């Protein structure tokens, strides 16, 4: 007999940590983005996706609203806006 022992990554859905967001969430303005990918690289959750200029987006199921992506963007193309509960979900 075996109890809880190992977990396969594909069976693990992850907690919807987006519900933790308190004050702010990032808004990707899609105006001056140069696709440097730094926002995707620096996100602690790894929930920023995108490839070409102005194509980057956040999976708000997981975004905790830390603001590091907005801080790193060299073109200041990400604004931290007050979380109003109406996050876009793609």
């Amino acid at each position, binding site marked *: *007999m075996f*109890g*809880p*022992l*190992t*977990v*396969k*990554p594909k069976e*693990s859905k992850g907690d919807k940590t987006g519900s933790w967001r308190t004050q702010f969430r990032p808004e990707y303005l899609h105006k001056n983005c140069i696709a440097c990918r730094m926002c995707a690289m620096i996100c602690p959750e790894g929930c920023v996706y995108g490839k070409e200029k102005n194509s980057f987006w956040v999976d708000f199921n997981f975004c905790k609203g830390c603001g590091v992506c907005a801080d790193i963007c060299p073109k200041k193309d990400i604004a931290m806006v007050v979380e109003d509960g109406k996050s876009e979900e793609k």
Partner: protein
Amino acid sequence: MKEFLEGSHAIAEIVKACRPGVVSAYPITPQTHIVEDLAQMVANGELKSEFVNVESEHSAASVVLGGSAAGVRVYTATSSQGLFYMQEVVFNIAGMRLPVVMTCANRAISAPINIWNDQQDSISLRDAGWIQIYAEDNQEAVDFHLLAYRLAEDKRVMLPVMVCMDGFILTHGMETVDIPEQEKVDKFLPPYSPLYKLDPAEPISMGLLADPDYYMETRFAIQETMKESLGYLSEISSEFNGVFGRDYKDLLVEEYQTKDAEKVIVAMGSVCGTIKEAVDQQRAKGKKVGLLRIISFRPFPYARIYEVLKDVPRVAVLDKAVSLGGYAPLSVDVKAALYGKKKGPKVVSSFVAGLGGRDITLESINEVFRRLTAKEVSSDFIDLKPELLKEEYGR
């Protein structure tokens, strides 16, 4: 093939035949010769294995944990302080359900430091979730390693196994031993086929955090597996007998002249050889005595013990360990087996002997039979030297 050799060398031979892929151990008397032999075998190309010389027992156990998790058969050996140093890893290995096999060359526990034999070390780790089997002589020590791997890797079990052999007495004693041939070993022990392992082809996470919602079931599962293993031990023993022609019956206990006995000693390990001789001598004089030898200490064969002892009027449990402040450990489990039953001995006395390697002679055993009277005694020390005891220190 029969050979006359030192116990440690015999163990190295059987471990070699079991084909472990990773061997890691830290030297501690009296286990050293086993591991030195294995190192030489690797150096000569006789044993194809990764031999990892670690910087402590904690790491030795961690190395074999990692090796086993990566899907390879592993081996380690230790004693006494080493076993205690790796204690948290020992519990970890059982909790992670990895089939590690370890030789424990039983040795006394510090302080004071003492390198000679008693069973305090392995008995102190009885709660860990490892199956523990105790060898009486070197033939058993050899055979038990083979049985250990077979049992540990059984997909219904997946628990680590500790083969306990008395330090110096067995490890350094020379006996004639039949070392099983490689082909027969391969027949009895197929290559390890893991239920779960670390492999990029099929990633898994092992050793997760289990909060109160998940932890208890893991312990329950091990407890259930331990109970089931009482049956698997018998199963594997009869399989072993079929291949090697040596019958360990149920691999739980050995009944030696217990059928009509009026006094029975319960004991574990090499001391049973001495006890058997004492029993023979007493029987020759017409005394009805016997020995119940415990082979499997964990899982503990409560039902079998009751079966054997229920009609025996007086039982003496001989412990080679002590639980300071309480009843001696083996006697506790024996009494638990007998408690609350309709039948049972009138007296179950507990004796402590052989601590720190103090010799248990035929005379010691006869003394145990003598002290097994109608008056029950508890943790009665045999062969104590009162002249060494003083009420106050520094005088």
